[in-house]
């Protein structure tokens, strides 16, 4: 063999070794674990478990590893929203914990392992993208930027504190001062806890001798359901799709 042929053979051996190492199986009493070449955004390898099922079939699962990854990103709610759709798109099951396929036949195992690994990785990747996007487009930031545009930054205080009638100091997302009268603006989610917190704050602010205007900005009034009536007792509620002129009018309205 000449030098070139030796190099080619060497490279092929290295490539074969790399290919073999990309996926490795380990075994435990409850099943076998395949470390796949796929990685989550954080760099951990995607591992898929194969377990023996009755009738010579197999169960293939990611054992909730994707959910654990998302949970450590403090993004479990986002993942819970994303994962069922990923599972549905790929024709596999998701039980709020793990991606899995049941009753897999021997000849389906390679494909099932690849599919589950792909789902597990994809769901965490989408979750990561969503939380990165959410951080940029955080509702509070968006609202502040919008108000600063409408009223000029000098008139808008971000993350301000304002005392209520009880002297409790309340955090508000934006405090706008127009003609000497303050107006507080907060994005309020449809979650009951968020609504309860907002109502408590607005109720206390409303008891002041000269109360500030209180404006709750929500994504969808319909999503609030009957709770819209609760918050409407202490603040005016607008959807975030209202035009800038409405936001401006609310700061001036009597």
């Amino acid at each position, binding site marked *: 063999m000449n030098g070139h042929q030796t190099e080619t053979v060497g490279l092929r051996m290295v490539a074969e070794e790399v290919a073999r190492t990309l996926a490795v199986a380990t075994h435990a*009493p*409850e099943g076998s*674990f395949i*470390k796949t070449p796929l*990685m*989550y*955004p*954080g*760099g*951990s*390898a*995607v*591992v898929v478990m194969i377990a023996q099922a009755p009738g010579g079939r197999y169960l293939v699962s990611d054992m*909730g*590893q994707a959910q654990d*990854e998302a949970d*450590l*990103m*403090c993004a479990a709610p986002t993942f819970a929203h994303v994962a069922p759709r990923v599972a549905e798109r790929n024709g596999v099951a998701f039980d709020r*914990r793990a991606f899995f396929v049941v009753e897999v036949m021997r000849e389906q195992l390679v494909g099932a392992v690849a599919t589950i690994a792909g789902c597990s990785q994809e769901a965490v990747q989408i979750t*990561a*993208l969503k*939380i*990165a996007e*959410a*951080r*940029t487009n*955080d509702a*509070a*930031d968006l609202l502040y930027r919008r108000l600063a545009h409408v009223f000029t930054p000098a008139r808008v205080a971000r*993350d301000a504190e304002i005392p209520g009638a009880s002297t409790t100091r309340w955090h508000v997302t934006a405090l706008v001062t127009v003609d000497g009268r303050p107006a507080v603006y907060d994005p309020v989610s449809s979650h009951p806890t968020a609504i309860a917190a907002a109502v408590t704050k607005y109720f206390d602010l409303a008891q002041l001798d000269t109360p500030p205007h209180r404006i709750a900005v929500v994504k969808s009034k319909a999503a609030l359901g009957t709770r819209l009536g609760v918050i409407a007792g202490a603040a005016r509620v607008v959807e975030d799709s209202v035009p800038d002129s409405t936001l401006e009018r609310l700061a001036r309205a009597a």
Partner: protein
Amino acid sequence: MSASLPDLVRAPKTLPFAPEWTPHEDQLRFTSSLDDADGVTIEGLWLRGQCPTRYPDERVVYQLEYLFPGFRRGPVSRIEWHPQSPHNNKGLGPPHLRHIEKSGSQVHPFDLNWTLGVKRMVSENLPIGLPIEPEPRDFRAFTSVMGTAFGVRGVDLIPAPPWQPRIL
């Protein structure tokens, strides 16, 4: 708030009292606030512990979490004992560890991941890890390594998780 995050993470912290591991699906978890050097609870910083209920001494994780502006919580440092899967820093972090798949216990230090910027640090789940050498011999030793890595005193208060080993 995030401008002072490095100071917050690097400052000495103390566990105020013994946390309690509680079941959460197939895991055991706790989340504890942390005190500063004056005994004041640090706003927006927590220590979290978690491990699978049925696998003693496996996949134990401690993580420091911070409430970022905009009221989103995210990881700022993590340490893992006997993780299930190997880790790969990809092309990030210390050159000698780039593209090297590492099995075994590891720490994802704040200082290395902070260099990526807060958005990547959080959304990529602390992608830069370092192997812990030697491997902690048991849970207590691992917890002690965590205390040193995170600058948290009083970690000996953390009880061993009440694992319930799977019987096959």
